[in-house]
């Protein structure tokens, strides 16, 4: 299926790292993720089942490990938000094999609504642009209004392709501009 990307380049976004105080006064560090699988396995084991979307993250540890192993591949871009040294949010770009990348973001329940998602996704897009990614897309459940609002805010536009889910896309560079 052809996906329409907006003509306007989204951003600007800064690549990680970054450090900020969230709306609850917590010190949050956003950085590229390059350590092993364990800290993220721990985060996803604490992830609330009601915060899952479209079948991910998986709920059982073996499936979480299997899923994360694919995301931590060298082709993918992983950025985490950490509090007290442990990941509390994780955002990922995975190449779709068609010159674009799919985006997903997860934030633990007690860290939601504090501005962490916005910082995380903007730095992920900054990191993606550094890696030469031109176009990014995602799907989101239509009723998930906080998520849809976040994606709109950072530059995603609905593609009209979705069925149950809304599909959104963002352009990170003008055509052929990526390094």
């Amino acid at each position, binding site marked *: 299926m052809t996906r329409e990307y907006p003509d306007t380049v989204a951003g600007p976004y800064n690549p990680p790292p970054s450090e900020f105080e969230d709306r609850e006064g917590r010190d949050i560090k956003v950085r590229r993720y390059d350590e092993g699988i364990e800290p993220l396995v721990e985060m996803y084991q604490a992830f609330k089942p009601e915060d899952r*979307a*479209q079948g*991910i993250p*998986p709920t059982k540890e073996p499936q979480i490990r299997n*899923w994360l192993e694919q995301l931590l591949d060298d082709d993918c871009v992983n950025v985490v938000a950490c509090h007290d040294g442990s990941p509390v949010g994780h955002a990922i770009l995975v190449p779709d094999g068609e010159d674009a990348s799919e985006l997903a973001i997860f934030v633990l329940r007690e860290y939601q609504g504090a501005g962490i998602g916005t910082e995380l996704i903007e730095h992920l897009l900054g990191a993606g642009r550094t890696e030469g990614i031109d176009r990014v897309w995602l799907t989101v459940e239509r009723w998930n209004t906080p998520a849809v609002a976040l994606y709109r805010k950072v530059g995603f536009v609905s593609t009209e392709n979705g*069925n149950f*889910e809304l599909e959104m896309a963002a352009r990170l560079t003008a055509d052929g501009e990526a390094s």
Partner: protein
Amino acid sequence: MKTLLGIGGSDDSLYALEVAIDRAKEAGDDLTIAIVENPETSLTQAEIRDRATEALSDVDFDAEVTTLSGHPGSQLVELAERGSFDRIVLGGGETSPLGKVQLGEISEFVILNAQTTVTLIR
């Protein structure tokens, strides 16, 4: 039970084909396989029909195989009503590069419009 399996050639529908035949054989269900037009797939309806026939003979089970033309979702729903089927069975959705399950247009139409139970196979 009288079961209608709708397949259009996507990977999840071909998986559903295998599972649905096994289940129908086990339960002794009366299975009909309807090949629908799915513009998203590279397989022709004749090729999908061959796959279905092959899958049936592999497990030595018999089912009617029919080809539907026109709007796939409404054709399936209409056939289910006309043929007094108890259930429509479909593939459970494609998986995105990130692992998200995505239901296609045919599934959405059938789930929202069918008068019968709809089963998605995972």
